[in-house]
């Protein structure tokens, strides 16, 4: 559904549609996927939209192949993405690790549904948070974003591409079934210009190019295959030249840089929406679709005169440790509602380092956490 005028376009669309549109706005030119509920609409929309902009869509034979194709396309210079859900996300992990290791920019959308295994295919969940961080083997860098609404899905999809290009890292966009399928009114300002980041390219001739050079920024410049810079890309631990190494010093240097390149920029990457009140002793930490209920609960509590410090991260990895530590200093408790058995509560406990009590509010039955459930948890502490 659409309404038009000169400056604004009003649409009623789902999160999955917003994700596809955001990706196109970010310059997506290659999508490889595999059908899986509740993410399939992203593939369906892009199969229709990509050819019109000269882009390529392919439905691969499996999720593993889709992730491989995305990496191949990115290496020849296309902005590339795949989208999946729980069981498919498990299959992405192999080549997600490759993308992290070989520092290939790409975006992986996971529209979370209930797990483990085939789980609850048509119902929402937030139980892939740890898999997003640690799903692939080995110490590796990763960024994961998590929007709480349709418009934010659009914006964060663009941001996902920007971050992946800037830091040469795979970026995971964590939607859930609610965000993916909810219809919301979205207002697009046609004059709004989005800043689009591209991977930094080398300023040296091919003979001097080191594809994994140690630079001041820790993010080596990257050139596409086929531009006269012939180099080697491998999932083996490699040195600056890109070729495998077993040298202790080189291994340590490389793996430390690989992980440091995200750690050191955490403050630039992390975004947290804070809604605090002077003197509030109750903290609330919520993200994704659960943050919608949390917002509602905060309003209801405030109507009753209860003060709340509410924080809503849109970046889950790297984890907003400093924000949580501050909240822990201010509050007597932090309530963490989430649609799992407490994956983020665990991180919040770690970040608050025993300074405050962490209260879990969980649902695992495929039903959203209702505002009243969060409100109950708040009122118990008043």
């Amino acid at each position, binding site marked *: 559904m659409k309404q038009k005028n000169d400056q604004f376009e009003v649409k009623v669309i789902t999160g999955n549609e917003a994700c596809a549109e955001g990706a196109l706005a970010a310059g997506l*030119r*290659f999508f*490889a996927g595999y059908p899986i509920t509740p993410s399939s609409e992203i593939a369906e929309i892009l199969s229709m939209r990509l*050819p*019109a902009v*000269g882009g*390529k869509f*392919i439905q*691969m*034979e*499996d999720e*593993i*192949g*889709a*992730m*491989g*194709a*995305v*990496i*191949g*396309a*990115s*290496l*020849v*210079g*296309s902005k*590339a993405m795949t989208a999946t859900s729980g069981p498919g996300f498990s299959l992405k992990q*192999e*080549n997600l690790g*490759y993308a992290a290791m070989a520092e290939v920019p790409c975006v992986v959308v996971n529209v979370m549904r209930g797990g483990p295994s085939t789980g609850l295919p048509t119902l929402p969940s937030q139980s892939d948070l740890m898999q997003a961080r640690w799903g692939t083997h080995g110490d590796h860098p990763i960024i994961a974003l998590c929007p709480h609404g349709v418009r934010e899905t659009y914006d964060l999809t663009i941001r996902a591409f920007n971050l992946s290009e800037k830091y040469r890292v795979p970026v995971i966009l964590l939607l859930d079934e609610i965000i993916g399928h909810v219809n919301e009114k979205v207002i697009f300002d046609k004059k709004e210009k989005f800043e689009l980041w591209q991977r930094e390219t080398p300023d040296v001739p091919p003979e001097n190019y080191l594809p994994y050079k140690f630079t001041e920024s820790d993010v080596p410049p990257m050139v596409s*295959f*086929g*531009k*006269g810079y*012939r*180099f*080697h*890309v*491998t*999932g*083996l631990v490699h040195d600056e030249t890109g*070729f*495998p190494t077993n040298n202790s010093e080189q291994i340590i240097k490389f793996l430390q840089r690989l992980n440091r390149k995200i750690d050191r920029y955490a403050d630039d990457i992390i975004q947290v929406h804070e809604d605090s009140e002077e003197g509030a002793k109750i903290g609330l930490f919520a993200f994704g679709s659960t943050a919608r209920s949390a917002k509602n609960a905060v309003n209801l509590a405030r109507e009753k005169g209860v003060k709340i410090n509410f924080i809503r991260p849109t970046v889950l990895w790297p984890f907003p440790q400093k924000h949580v530590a501050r909240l822990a200093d201010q509050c007597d408790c932090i309530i963490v509602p989430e649609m799992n058995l407490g994956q983020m509560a665990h991180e919040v406990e770690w970040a608050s380092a025993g300074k405050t009590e962490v209260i879990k509010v969980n649902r695992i039955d495929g039903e959203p956490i209702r505002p009243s459930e969060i409100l109950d948890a708040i009122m118990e502490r008043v």
Partner: protein
Amino acid sequence: MLDYNKYLRQQKFPLIWCAGCGDGIVLKSMLRAIDKIGLSKDEICMVSGIGCSSRLTGYVDFNTLHTTHGRAIAFATGVKMAKPEMHVIVVTGDGDATAIGGNHYIHAARRNIDISVILFNNNIYGMTGGQVSPTTPIGSRASTAPFGNPENSFNISGLAEAAGASFVARGTVHDALILDKYIEKAIRKKGFSVVEVMTPCPTAYGRRNRIGDGVAMIKDLKEHSVSVRKASKMSEEELNDKVVTGILVDRERPEYTDNYNKLIERVKGSNS
């Protein structure tokens, strides 16, 4: 004579391959074919998976992509689709392409995407120490088939043919110069092409099955190979322990990236 060094990353030598391994023979054959066609090094993207043969990409001066186990063809599909003007050549082995990567292999053949696969078939997992592979002959010994392989084996070329490849040939490292021609034709062919190369692994297969060293194994290959023409006159029983060599398939079928580009033109046309 061709100066192979033109295509090699000499600083990466010596090769990791064992004495008597046939992979180097295939490497040289590939370079002769590429040189004959006259492709520039910049327009070749060589993609490999995991295994002994897949280490080849480290030694050649092209755009080289050493991927995860079995996934070379999937990565190559992304490269070819996003940049169809690139010549995409996949280097893989029997385990890599037809066990863990079997799904990608048959589906790339079905799409008939313009990728050339040079498949090194040594009937064994060499790099990991001689485990049984999908092409280990029934009864042969492997480190995970100590009492003889109880499984039937794959016909790799037949698989590609049935799945829809445009070009399929099988050769051996004994007849390296004929191999050049197969590889040349495969690269020139618009569509999915496979050259299955029978190559010995004396370390992990020959010793265990008492065939002997590399030379003995190559002689053994010679004795057991028959041309397609000869094979057509032989019974199934006679062909039981034989390797049928030659061009097995050479046909015209719509190619995937071409089809997709036509689709783009059609969509753009209807939008304007």
